């Protein structure tokens, strides 16, 4: 009798379809987690790149937000290794759209160096003492170097600036940068080389 008790039910379609639903749900959740991790890893750099191009915090935020949404809507089911160049391609298109619009209405906003407000930082320097925070003089040097680089970046043609930021800040290789910029690898190398030449001519061997 125990042998009859171990027989499997003859029809198991309902449970199978339920398993399929669970599987698709778990896949969607895994994809969401992966996308969340990817976006969390690049959002600050993406903002910095957009801010360097647009010179306006809110516009840069809008551009990054639009790029995030576009990537999630249209390309979240693509392989994760394709996300980065796709994201920066979308971001670049968004930046270009904003720049065109801004050109139409005139360049109202002047160069605004990005400054952090220490009062809003999560870390309280007093509570964290002793800390690895650089000394005030060192912070001042870094601040000056940042401002100088920021100002020099603003003088670069857009494509050179884009190649420089993607290669230097985001650490993308030539192939990825070419996909993100929508051009050949040779063009990326040319833009990057010219950007380096211009920046070095302006900044010299600036020390940090």
């Amino acid at each position, binding site marked *: 009798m125990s042998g009859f008790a171990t027989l499997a039910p003859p029809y198991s379609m309902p449970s199978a379809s339920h398993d399929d639903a669970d599987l698709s749900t778990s896949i969607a959740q895994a994809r969401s987690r992966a996308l969340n991790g990817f976006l969390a890893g690049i959002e*600050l750099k993406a*903002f*910095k790149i957009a801010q360097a191009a647009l010179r306006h915090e809110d516009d840069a935020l809008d551009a990054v*937000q639009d790029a*995030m949404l576009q990537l999630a809507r249209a390309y979240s089911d693509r392989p994760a290794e394709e996300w980065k160049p796709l994201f920066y391609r979308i971001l670049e298109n968004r930046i270009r759209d904003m720049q065109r619009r801004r050109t139409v209405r005139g360049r109202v906003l002047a160069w605004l160096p990005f400054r952090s407000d220490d009062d809003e930082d999560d870390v309280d320097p007093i509570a964290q003492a002793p800390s690895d925070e650089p000394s005030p003089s060192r912070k001042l040097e*870094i601040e000056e170097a*940042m401002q100088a680089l920021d100002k020099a970046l603003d003088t670069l043609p857009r494509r050179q600036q884009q190649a420089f930021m993607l290669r*230097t800040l985001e650490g993308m290789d030539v192939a990825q940068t070419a996909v993100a910029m929508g051009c050949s690898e040779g063009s990326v190398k040319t833009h990057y080389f010219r950007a380096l030449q211009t920046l070095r001519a302006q900044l010299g061997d600036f020390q*940090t």
Partner: protein
Amino acid sequence: MSPQDERSTGFEEQARAVLAESVTRIDSRIRSRLNQARQAAIAEVSRPSRRPRLLLMPAAGAVVAAVLVAMVLWQHRPDSALPGNDGGGQMVAAEDLDLIADTDGLDMLQDSDGTFYEWAAGQADAGAETST
């Protein structure tokens, strides 16, 4: 590596360090808004896909349209177009065809010299007199 290349590499490293430092100094307001934007994007992925439903909608619409057309054609088929006709229309059409196809009537007209009509009229008059 040439001195020029070394200088370029050193410059790149310094620039990378400065840019990395500038990223760490992005304030909490910007971080918070970026976080909100990211959550909105993730919610977009988590939302159930509407694509399959959108693909099914034209097919469902086509089926509904076909059913409606079939119903209209059924309601307006020729038999039911004649008011008060419940099948008699087919009988009338058959009689018409018989009249048209009948050749006896034509032969009678060709061979007739008018005597039939005179006889028929006489029969009608006789009928009228007997009824009165």
